[in-house]
């Protein structure tokens, strides 16, 4: 394990040095602040608290942005080092390949967590400073949102590694990563929508739809956050959905964790079969 820690340390230092952390954090903070301050400006708010509005907008932002940042960080973690030739030397050291994946994962996870916590924390701070009274429950929802945002990021880091370990060069990795992003963030749900329309709501029952949603981590994230409280789900337009989607928050979170663990494992396996 200690090898993984050393590698994680290097990744973190590297990320700090090439300002990747700064860029990611800055981007998240800027967008989160914008969304928070704009808030519900032009739309009709139906008597929900500002924090709920913020949570919904930030959650939407997360789905778009966090996977993107994660894939950007992760997509050439393996293929890039193989291509540049630094991987051979690394693997000649007492380092198991799983340590490489694990170490990089730990490092990148920290980078992402910092970006998310600082970025969204700024938004929370702004809200607090602007002096709106917010009840404890909403803050809990906010914390859930930040936490699951990080989880979502980890899912896509893991997926990025899987891509990176599988392809030959980092250009292919970049294309595949963008494909992955498009697929999970856009195409999957669009396809579901299409299927719903084509099916005329006959065979695709809510239960089936639910199961299908679990097969997409960004949908799992949405299910957790946009139905997290009556206030939030009301504003998110998902009122009355929460109770129908049978899965409880803890189940959803374990699905997300599964979505991290399985790609990581697969990435390790694929990486183990690669020759340098």
């Amino acid at each position, binding site marked *: 394990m200690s090898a993984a820690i050393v590698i994680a340390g290097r990744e973190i230092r590297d990320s700090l040095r090439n300002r990747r952390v700064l860029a990611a954090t800055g981007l998240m903070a800027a967008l989160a602040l914008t969304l928070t301050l704009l808030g519900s400006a032009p739309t009709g708010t139906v008597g929900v608290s500002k924090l709920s509005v913020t949570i919904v907008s930030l959650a939407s932002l997360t789905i778009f942005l966090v996977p993107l940042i994660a894939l950007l960080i992760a997509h050439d973690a393996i293929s890039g080092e193989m291509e540049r030739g630094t991987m051979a030397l690394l693997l000649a050291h007492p380092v198991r390949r799983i340590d490489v994946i694990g170490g990089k994962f730990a490092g990148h996870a920290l980078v992402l967590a910092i970006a998310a916590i600082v970025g969204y924390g700024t938004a929370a701070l702004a809200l607090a400073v602007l002096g709106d009274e917010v009840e404890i429950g909403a803050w809990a929802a906010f914390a859930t949102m930040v936490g699951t945002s990080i989880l979502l990021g980890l899912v896509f880091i893991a997926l990025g590694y899987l891509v990176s370990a599988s392809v030959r060069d980092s250009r292919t990795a970049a294309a595949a990563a963008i494909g992955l992003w498009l697929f999970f963030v856009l195409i999957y749900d669009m396809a579901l929508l299409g299927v719903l329309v084509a099916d*005329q709501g*006959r*065979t695709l*029952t809510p239960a089936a739809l639910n199961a299908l949603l679990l097969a997409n981590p960004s949908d799992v994230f949405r299910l957790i956050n946009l139905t997290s409280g009556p206030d939030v789900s009301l504003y998110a337009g998902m009122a009355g959905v929460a109770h129908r989607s049978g899965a409880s928050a803890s189940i959803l979170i374990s699905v997300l964790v599964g979505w991290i663990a399985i790609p990581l494992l697969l990435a390790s396996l694929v990486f183990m079969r690669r020759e340098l």
Partner: protein
Amino acid sequence: EDKSTAAAPPPHEVDGDAVAQFCNMSLTEHSGPKGQIFVKDDPTPFWFASVHDLFAFVMLGDTPKAITALYVNDMAKAKNWDQPEPGTWIDARRAFYVIGSSKRGGMGEPEAVPFSNEDAAQRFIAQHGGRLVRFDQMPRDYVLASDTSSPSEPPQ
């Protein structure tokens, strides 16, 4: 299709609590044949003050589509036009409908009068005019295009 495999719930009988879809009035406030539709995962039916409204529900885009059963009053069997008796419900998909007759529906709108057999329908046509259609042939225009003529006087 799974319509046939899913156990279709049996028809309910009209009681005082049955409120018609679209107009929110009690079913008992209306005369003529009525309808009910069951959708998936809901034990209570949508009630319709007229068969016309039932078809509107089926055809409109904004209504649930996971329909498990549809029933209309068989006016061949019902003796009371104003309040068809219990036990006269038949599967709406199998019924024969007379449209364009002189008989008006529960609130005076043009009505599609359902019958369980063709003979009864033809007898009705002989008496009140109109023509015979099956469930799947019900013209969209007849149901959704609005009748801008003034409603006729209802039975008192």
